[in-house]
């Protein structure tokens, strides 16, 4: 259970560039929810995920995860219970180190002086085989040799090797080619389903925002302007979503890429 209680964040406060990225936002995410998040550029989607994962501290408000106040916890502490993927597949892995070394760090078992055991290797191999990318035979190769899709799949594996309380996905398929994106997305779905993960996913693809998960929220100007789930969401189409956006935002959509390609994943 994640709870955001009236969090706010202003970047560059007191300057001409001051931008209120998150504005008095509250959100409650029960265990097992898979929320898709949509909104125009600069609406505060990524900023909200950054606030949850601790990339910065919020100016005000409180963040609870499983009843624990994590508002002022540093990011490396939060990452014990929060897994995260970014748009850039390079961000999640250490390119100069091998696949098994990356996985060992992510798995985080054993003491500081423990080494990779045969048991670990067997477990990694088994998990990697589920990706169907042949990575299980390349354990001792540097991650830098992998393609973007492979790296993102590996990052997904690393983020979920110890099932986190919360998985944050920030357009994690947007930088991949269509077939890799599709593969990573279906992997995401199956991993989330198998581990009953609570998940929040930012996407620019309105169709997959409706197809994936059980709840969709829409953001604008640092606020949540639409929050749908259940039957109402099931019957929604992309056009309903766009109408709802216009209505809720109270203005016409400008030439945002959300409008330009509502069907396709960029």
């Amino acid at each position: 259970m994640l709870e955001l209680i009236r969090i706010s964040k202003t970047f560059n406060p007191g300057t001409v560039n001051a931008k209120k990225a998150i504005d008095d936002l509250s959100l409650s995410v029960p265990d097992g929810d898979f929320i898709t998040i949509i909104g125009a550029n600069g609406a505060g989607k990524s900023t909200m995920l950054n606030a949850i994962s601790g990339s910065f501290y919020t100016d005000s408000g409180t963040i609870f995860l499983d009843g624990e106040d994590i508002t002022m916890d540093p990011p490396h502490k939060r990452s014990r219970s929060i897994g995260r993927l970014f748009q850039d597949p390079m961000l999640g892995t250490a390119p100069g180190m091998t696949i098994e070394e990356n996985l060992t760090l992510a798995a985080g078992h054993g003491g500081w002086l423990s080494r990779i055991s045969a048991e670990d290797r067997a477990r990694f191999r088994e998990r990697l085989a589920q990706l169907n990318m042949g990575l299980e035979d390349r354990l001792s190769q540097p991650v830098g040799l992998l393609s973007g899709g492979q790296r993102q799949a590996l990052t997904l594996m690393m983020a979920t090797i110890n099932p986190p309380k919360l998985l944050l996905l920030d357009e994690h398929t947007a930088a991949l080619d269509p077939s890799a994106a599709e593969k990573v997305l279906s992997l995401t779905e199956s991993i989330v389903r198998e581990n009953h993960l609570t998940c929040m996913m930012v996407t620019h693809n309105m169709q997959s925002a409706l197809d994936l998960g059980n709840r969709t929220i829409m953001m604008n100007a640092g606020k949540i302007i639409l929050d749908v789930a259940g039957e109402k969401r099931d019957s929604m189409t992309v056009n309903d979503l766009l109408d709802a956006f216009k209505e809720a935002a109270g203005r016409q959509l400008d030439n945002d890429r959300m409008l330009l390609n509502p069907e396709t994943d960029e």
Partner: protein
Amino acid sequence: MQIIGLVQTALELGLISALTVLALFLSYSMLNICDLSTDGCFTLGATVGAVVAIAGHPYLSIAAAMLAGVCSGFTTAFLQTKMGINSLLAGIIVNTGLYSINIAVMGNSSLLNMNKTETVFTKLKSLLEGTPLSGQYRLLIALIAVVCVIVFLSLFLRTRLGLAIRATGDNPDMVRASSINPVFTSIIGLCIANAFTGLSGCLLAQSQKSVNIDIGTGMVTIALASLLIGRAFMGRGKIPKQAVGAVLGAFVFRLVYTIALRFDLPAYMLKLVSSVIVIIAIAGPYFRTQMPVIRRKLRHRNAAPAGVPGNSGKEVR
């Protein structure tokens, strides 16, 4: 005979400075931090080691020098991770401060003599008296130290902590995502690296039976040159191979330098030589990657007829 002497000197000095090269292997190659406090830390190891040895503790002097290195490394790491000071600047600041500390350690003097001091070198020398190895005590001690450090590094960098240190230099975000604080790994890495630098300084001072305030001047460039030479020889293989490459680089650097001295190159040229080697070693690969662009520019200049702007553009369309 003379050649053997040359190689022997190069081996001894090369192995001792190889400890500093291995320190930079950890901080520069693994952590991706260019530790400019290396010069001062090297001298600190030398002065602390000398003072403790002169006080009559030959073995303790080694440990003391390494501990002094740890303190120096911790300070550098603390400044850059907790005080918001740029990592290069942090090294320079610590280096400057260490100058005063080193003179203070030597009791307000810039020179200490250890001619009659008992050190690990004199201990081993008397132990080997009469055996075929009697002349090789310097080499043996340096070799033992280097082997210990390589074995330590090879094992350590495969532990979880070692992996975390390597990942810190590779992708600190990934370290954070693995619930490890990159500040912690940077501090540990620099402490260990500087312990080796301190050891290196201590052994050099004790092997030449004296220490002066300039003993570490230019060490960071010399060690960097050696590291890059080693990389050129061994490439980027597994950790033990890279570490051995670093030692090899230190030896080759000393050998070239010793030979250069034979050809009447004055001793003070060492530092210029090391600077040039570092420049070539870093700029060389850079220019190699730039070559296609440079060639393309030249081709373009030769091919494009001057004075007809716009013309070629229309044809393409």
